[in-house]
C-alpha cells in the first residue's frame, strides 16, 4: 500500500485556484440570469412578474426599515419573519434530536428495528402536510402546534438515515471498543455516533430544507402571523409585489441556513472528507 501522505502545498494551491475559478463561474452565471430576469421583466407589462430589483427594494422597506434600536428590523420582520424562523429552527432541532435518538436505538438493536420498521414505514409514507388539519384539531392553532408539526415532518429523514448509519458500522469498530472495556456511553458517543455522522448529516440536510417547507405550510391555515400567513394574504389581496417579497425572503432563509449547516458539516466531517480524497 502506498502512503497517502499529507497533500503538498502545491496541490493545495492548485485547489484554491480551481475553487476560486468555480466560484467566479457560479457568480457570473447567477449575475447573468438576474440581469436577464431584470431586463425581461422591466420590458414587459405582465403584472405577475415584477423585476427582481423592485422585489429587493420592497423587501428593504418591508423588513429592514425599523429603528436602529431594533437592529433595523421592521414591525413586520418582528411579527412575521422572526416567528417563522423561530418555529422552523425549533421544529428542526426537536425533530432532529428525536430522530438521532430513536435512529440510534433502531440502528443498534435488532428487536427495536424489527418492531419499529413497519410503523416507521407507514408513518413516513403519510405526506406530513396532510396531517396539518389533524394537528390543528388536536393541538390548537398556536405556535407550539406548528413547531410539533414541523418536528413530525422532519423527524423521519433524520431517524432513517441515523438508523442506517448506525446499523452499518463495521463490526471491528464496535469490537475495538468492547475489547478495551470502554464504557457503553463512551462507545456510543465516541464510536457509534461519529461513525454514523456522515449519514446523519445527509438526513439533517433534507430535514433542514423540509423544516422551512413545513414552517410555511403550517402558516397557510389558521395562522395569525408568519411568512406563510403573509404570503397567502398578499396573494388574496393581489399584492403581487409583497407576495414575491415573501418568496424571496424564504429563499434567502433557506439559502443561509443550508450554508450554515454545510459549514457545520464541513467542520464535523472534515476527517471523512479528507479520508476520501
Amino acid at each position, binding site marked *: *500500500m*502506498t*502512503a*497517502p*501522505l*499529507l497533500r503538498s502545498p502545491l496541490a493545495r494551491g492548485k485547489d484554491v485556484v480551481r475553487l476560486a475559478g468555480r466560484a467566479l463561474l457560479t457568480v457570473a452565471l447567477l449575475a447573468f440570469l438576474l440581469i436577464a430576469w431584470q431586463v425581461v421583466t422591466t420590458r414587459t407589462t405582465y403584472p405577475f412578474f415584477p423585476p427582481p430589483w423592485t422585489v429587493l427594494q420592497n423587501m428593504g422597506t418591508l423588513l429592514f426599515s425599523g429603528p436602529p434600536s431594533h437592529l433595523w428590523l421592521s414591525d413586520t420582520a418582528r411579527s412575521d419573519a422572526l416567528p417563522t424562523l423561530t418555529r422552523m429552527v425549533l421544529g428542526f432541532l426537536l425533530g432532529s434530536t428525536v430522530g438521532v435518538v430513536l435512529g440510534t436505538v433502531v440502528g443498534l438493536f435488532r428487536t427495536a428495528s424489527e418492531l419499529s420498521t413497519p410503523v416507521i414505514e407507514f408513518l413516513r409514507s403519510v405526506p406530513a402536510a396532510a396531517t396539518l388539519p389533524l394537528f390543528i384539531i388536536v393541538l390548537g392553532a398556536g405556535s407550539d402546534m406548528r413547531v410539533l408539526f414541523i418536528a413530525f415532518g422532519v423527524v423521519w429523514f433524520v431517524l432513517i438515515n441515523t438508523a442506517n448509519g448506525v446499523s452499518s458500522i*463495521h463490526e*471491528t*469498530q464496535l*469490537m*475495538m471498543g*468492547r*475489547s*478495551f*472495556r*470502554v*464504557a457503553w456511553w*463512551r462507545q456510543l458517543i*465516541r*464510536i457509534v455516533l*461519529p461513525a454514523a455522522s456522515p449519514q446523519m448529516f445527509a438526513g439533517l440536510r433534507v430535514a433542514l430544507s423540509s423544516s422551512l417547507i413545513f414552517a410555511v405550510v403550517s402558516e397557510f391555515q389558521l395562522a395569525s402571523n408568519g411568512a406563510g400567513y403573509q404570503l397567502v394574504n398578499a396573494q388574496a389581496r393581489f399584492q403581487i409585489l409583497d407576495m414575491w417579497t415573501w418568496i424571496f425572503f424564504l429563499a434567502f432563509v433557506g439559502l443561509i441556513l443550508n450554508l450554515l449547516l454545510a459549514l457545520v458539516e464541513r467542520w464535523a466531517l472534515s*476527517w*471523512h472528507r*479528507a*479520508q476520501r480524497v
Partner: protein
Amino acid sequence: MTNVPTRAPADTALLRVDAVSHVYGADARAHRAVSDLDFTVGSGEFVSLVGPSGAGKTTVLRILSGLLRPSSGAVYMQGQRVTGVPDGMAMVFQDYSRSLLPWLTVEKNVAFPLAGKKLSSKERTSLVSESLSAVGLGSAHQRFPWQLSGGMQQRVAIARALAYQPKLLLMDEPFASLDAQSRSELEDLLLRLRDQYDITIVFVTHDIDESVYLADRVLVLSKSPAHLVADLPVPLPKPRDQISTKEAPEFVRLRGQVARLIRSGGAEESV
C-alpha cells in the same frame, strides 16, 4: 465479573483453555467452528495459533478475549473464569483501518482506551508518548490514521495496545494485510517490544513462516471445526533474525512440519 475458580490456579499459566467448543447457529444450520480445544499459555510466552484459512482461528481468539462466550468449556485468565473481556487484556485487529478511529488523531486513538483507567492526565500523556515512541511513531501524534501507510497504522494500533499496559496481548492476523517489507519490520518490532514490555502474546496467523519465526510455541489448528493438531515448542535462539533464523535447519524443519500438519489436518504426524 464472577469469580469461580473451579480448578486451583496451580500452574503458572496466564491463560488456560479448558475443553472449549463453539457452535454457531442451531439445529440443521448449526456450524461447529471450534471442537474441544485444550491448551495453556504461560506467563511471558509468545504463542502462535496457526491454521488453514477459515479454520475458526478468529473464533478461538474471540473466545479467549471474552468477546464471545463458548458454547461449552471455559477459558481461565490467571485462574479466573473469563465471562466478559477481562482486565489486563488488549487486542490488535487485522483491519487497522477499522480498528483505528478515523475521526481521532493518532495521539487520541492511542489515548482512547485509557479513559477507563484511573490515570492522571500527566500519566496518560506520558503513556501515550512512550508507546508511540516505542513503535517508532514519536513524531506522528497529531496526524490522522488515514494519513499514514498501512504499516504505520498497524504500529499505531500496537501502540494503543501497549499504552493500555496489558498482561496478555491478543493479535488477530495483525500483519496479514501489509506488504512484505512492512510485515517483517513489524515482526521484529513486535519481538523487541515483547522483551521490553514483558507481555504474553497470543498471535493468530495463517502464515506458517510467521508463526514459527515469532513464537516460543506454535499451536497448529485443524481446518474447521478447529481442534488442536499439534503443540510444538520452537527452540530457535533469540534474538531472531529475518535472514539467519530463517536459514537455520531447525526453522526449516519446523516450517515443514507445521506445513505438513496443516495440509494433512493432523492425520499423518499426530502428537
